[in-house]
C-alpha cells in the first residue's frame, strides 16, 4: 500500500508524538520518584546502602539503554514475565532515568555546604526537618537546570523503544516511511516534532541554570 506524504501522515506522526510524550512523562515520574529515593540513600544512607545504590548507578550508567530495553522485553519474557512493549519500554526507561537522576540529585544534595547542615543542627532541627526545610529546598534549586536538561535526554531516548516495536514517534516514522517511500518528508517531520518538544525544554533548562548562577554567591 503506497500512499503519498500528506496531512494524514502528519496526523499519524502526531499520534506517535503523543506516545513519545506519554512515555517520557511516565519515565520522568517513575524515574523521579525512585531517583529521589536513591539519591537520598546514596547521599545520606548507611554505608552499605550507599554502596548498593552506587553499584546500581554505575551498572546502569555503563549499560547501553538498548540493552536494558532488550533485557526488559526479551529477557524478562524468556524468564516468564511477558511485558507488552509499552510496559517493557516504561520499565527499562525508568530504570535508566532512576540511575541518572539519582546521580544528578545526589550531586546537588552534596553541593550544599556542610555549614548549612551545621546551622540547622545548631537550631535543634531534627534530621527530617533539616532535610525538609534547609537542604532539599536548596538542592532543588541547583537541581532544576540539570534535571530539565535530562528530560531532553529522556524524550530523545524514548526513540530507542522503536526497536521492540513500541509505536512512538520514531517507530511511527519508520512505518510511515515504509508506506510512502518519502524518507526526507517523513523523518524531517519526525525531527521537527522532536525539536518542538526538546527545544523549549533546553531553553528552559538554560534559563534555570542562568538564574542559579545569578543567585547568592556563598
Amino acid at each position, binding site marked *: 500500500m503506497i500512499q503519498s506524504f500528506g496531512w494524514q501522515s502528519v496526523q499519524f506522526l502526531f499520534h506517535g508524538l503523543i506516545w513519545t510524550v506519554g512515555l517520557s512523562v511516565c519515565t520522568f515520574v517513575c524515574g523521579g520518584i525512585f531517583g529521589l529515593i536513591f539519591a537520598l540513600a546514596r547521599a545520606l544512607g548507611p554505608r552499605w546502602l550507599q554502596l548498593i545504590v552506587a553499584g546500581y548507578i554505575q551498572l546502569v550508567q555503563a549499560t547501553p539503554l538498548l540493552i536494558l530495553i532488550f533485557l526488559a522485553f526479551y529477557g524478562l519474557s524468556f524468564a516468564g514475565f511477558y511485558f507488552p512493549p509499552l510496559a517493557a519500554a516504561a520499565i527499562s526507561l525508568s530504570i535508566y532515568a532512576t540511575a541518572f537522576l539519582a546521580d544528578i540529585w545526589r550531586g546537588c544534595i552534596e553541593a550544599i555546604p556542610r555549614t548549612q547542615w551545621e546551622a540547622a543542627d545548631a537550631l535543634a532541627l531534627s534530621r527530617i526537618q533539616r532535610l525538609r526545610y534547609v537542604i532539599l529546598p*536548596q538542592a532543588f534549586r541547583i537541581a532544576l537546570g540539570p534535571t530539565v536538561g535530562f528530560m531532553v535526554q529522556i524524550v530523545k531516548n524514548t526513540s530507542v523503544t522503536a526497536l521492540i516495536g513500541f509505536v512512538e514517534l520514531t517507530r511511527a516514522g519508520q512505518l510511515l516511511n515504509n508506506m510512502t517511500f518519502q524518507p526526507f518528508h517523513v523523518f524531517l517531520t519526525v525531527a521537527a516534532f522532536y525539536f518542538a518538544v526538546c527545544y523549549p525544554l533546553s531553553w528552559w533548562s538554560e534559563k534555570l541554570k542562568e538564574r542559579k548562577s545569578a543567585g547568592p554567591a556563598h
Partner: protein
Amino acid sequence: MPALRIENLKKSYGTVPVLKGINLAVENGDVVAVIGRSGSGKSTMLRCINGLEPFQEGSIVVAGHRLDQSRANLRDLRKEVGMVFQSYNLFPHLSVAENIMLAPRVVKGLPRDQRELLVRDVLSRVGLAEKASAYPDELSGGQQQRVAIARSLAMKPKVMLFDEVTSALDPELTGEVLKTIAELAEAGMTMVLVTHEMGFARRVATRTVFMHEGKIWEEGPSAQIFAHPATPELRSFIATDLK
C-alpha cells in the same frame, strides 16, 4: 549550678589529640572569651559544647543538659544553647524573617502571631528591624551576622556560643557585630566567645580563657589576664597581637 561545666574533655582526630583534658565552669551571666592561636583547640572546644563535634572522653553539662559520648538528647540541649558561626550560615533560600522563624516554628511549634512578634523583637535587638523581608544575599556581611545572632536569639537560648563571629568581616563591619554582642552581654546573656578581638575580649568579657596546645593554659578575670599574664605563652601571644 553553673550554666556550663566541662570536665576532663578529651578529643582527638585519629591519633592527633586536639583537646587534652579541658575543665571549665561558666556561671550564669558570665561572658567568657576564649583566645589562643589557630590550632589551639578553641573552636573545637566550642563545637563540642553543642554536640557539633563528638568527643572521646569527659562530659559537658550545659543549661542543665548533660552531654557525653552517647550524644543522647542532643536536640533538647540545642534548643537552649545558641550558636553563631564565623561564616554566618544563614539559609540563603529563606528571607530574614523566615530564617529567624524556622526553628521556633518547626522545633517549638510557635503559633504564627507569636512568631511575628518574635521576629520583630529579635530583629530590633540587633538593630535590623527594617530588614525582615530581605534575603541574606541582599545584606552586608555585618548585617548577615547580626541576623544570625537574631536567629539564634529567637530560640531564647540560656547560653550562646560565638565561633569567631567577626573573623570573616571587614574591620568596619566588625564594629557593628561586636556592639550587638556587647549589648547582649549587658542584658545578662551567658556567652562563650571564641575570638581574635583582644580589645573586645578585654572590654566585654568578664573572664578570659587562654588556650594553648589543646589545654586551658591560663584563665581568670579579663582585666587580670590581659594586664598580668602569668605564663610566657600568654605573654608572647598578647605581644604578637599588639604588633
